[in-house]
């Protein structure tokens, strides 16, 4: 798969997930273990390389899968949604990071709430 080099800083693998109506979907993923032992997950929207549902639309079920795959407990799991800069002159395709917080019950995440972060904040969170 061709990748945009700009994606690589915040993704070190691809992650497959079922999108709407089980459509095969794919995102970029980075799992970082922080100094405090928490798992920081960054899911990157890869646009045309994602054949299915965008990250945002199924973020709760995707984050649940990532949390399980990482082996992290809910209290030690931080999830960030990343859209890379596509180099478009349209502002809608610039880089964004959002920390996503969820309700949690029986290992299932729900009710996402997004909080915008700067790249610097994300870098700092990866180092903590």
């Amino acid at each position, binding site marked *: 798969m061709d990748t945009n080099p700009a994606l690589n800083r915040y993704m070190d693998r691809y992650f497959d997930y079922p999108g709407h109506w089980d459509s095969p979907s794919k995102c970029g993923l980075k799992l970082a273990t922080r100094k405090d032992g928490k798992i920081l997950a960054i899911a990157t929207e890869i646009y*045309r390389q994602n054949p299915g549902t965008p990250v945002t*639309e199924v973020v709760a079920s995707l984050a649940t899968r990532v949390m399980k795959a990482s082996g992290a407990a809910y209290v030690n799991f931080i999830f960030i949604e990343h859209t890379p800069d596509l180099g478009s002159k349209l502002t809608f*395709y610039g880089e964004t990071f959002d920390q996503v917080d969820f309700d949690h019950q029986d290992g299932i995440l729900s009710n996402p709430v997004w909080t915008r972060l700067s790249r610097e904040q994300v870098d700092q969170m990866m180092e903590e």
Partner: protein
Amino acid sequence: MKFKLIYPRWQKLEGQTIFNLPPHGPVVMAAALPEHVEIDFTDENVEDLIIDDSADLVGISMMLTTQVKRGWEIADQYRALGKKVIFGGISTMLHAEETMLHADSVFLGEVEGRMEQVFADFHKNDMKKVYNFLSKPPDLNLVGPANRSILKKDLYYHKGFRMVDLFHASRGCIYDCYPCAVRYLGGRGFRPRPIDRVVEELSGMDNNRLFIVDNSLALDTQWEKDLFKAMIPLKKKWVSHTIEDKNEVLDLAAQAGAWYVYQAVFDTSDYIRNRVKQYHDYGIAVEGTILLGLDNQTEDDIKRLIDFLLEIDLDLAEFTVLAPFPHTKAYSDLLKQNRIFDKDWNHYNAGKVVYYPKHMTPERLGELFQYAWDTFYKDEPQTMKMFNLINKVMSRELADGTYTPRRRDIANLSFGKKITDNA
């Protein structure tokens, strides 16, 4: 086997010229039905719907988000009579989870080669709650001519003038445009129909004026050139979305009957100015489609954009405010920022503001939307600009012998209803 197919009505934007075009989804769906199915179609936008128990199965075809609530209402009434109801179409796919609450079955995806299974299941009283073919588009060789015989054609005339018929030559799109859901609906690939099948369908259409509803005619240069070359002998006149900006493509498009295009005007750049001029150089008129309320637009930007539209000699302009339809990047972005305040789908008509714009209040954006329409059409009303476009196509039709006079016998009717005022 009687199948009642319904296209629900929706509320048109206030103050704008109403044109009811013959719908496309139902005629495409009708072409894919098994032969034993007898179809009775009602387009609620041009005729009244009588709900009774005469049909064996009811289908509701929905294109717009502003149709879904009415579609659900119709379904609820049929189901109260004990009738099974299946939904399909673009806005069924956009609102599938909610639609399931009002349906015995929802069909997601494209219909060709799938309807035999659906109707066989119905006969076995074993319809599936969801027929999901979103990730399995059919072979486009299976897509034959749409079945326009289901339409009551006399209802699609205004003062004796026939509306354009809708037609498609390709599906899908490679782009991921901010307000658009085609990525979800039609897949991320461009899927052109075989040219011979396109010509087969066009040759059988009795309407000389068409709207080619493809998402874009700027996705595959060679296919576009082959398509337009094949269309030249048919002498059709047509409207479409964007046509690729290569001179050889535009030249062939003009020869193939390109009448006018819907061209997105998103800024005041020389690129847009030259794009419009380039169309005009080939005799192709331009209706600008202008989306207001994007995050990069301040109030001054919107006013400057409207001034620009007047400078570049657009033939028509259509203004809309951003409507964050589900399964678009616009929806995702605004959802993340908690900026969508209105989830009444009847308000998603691209004329009402349902979210908090970045640089102004929703009310101010609503005012600027009205200002845009009023300002652009201040010196020459929309009806007059449309009349000019009609005159252009009539001249071309008279020149190549394809002109059909308007029908005097229904000149006092507008979409099947008697004209009672000076509309």
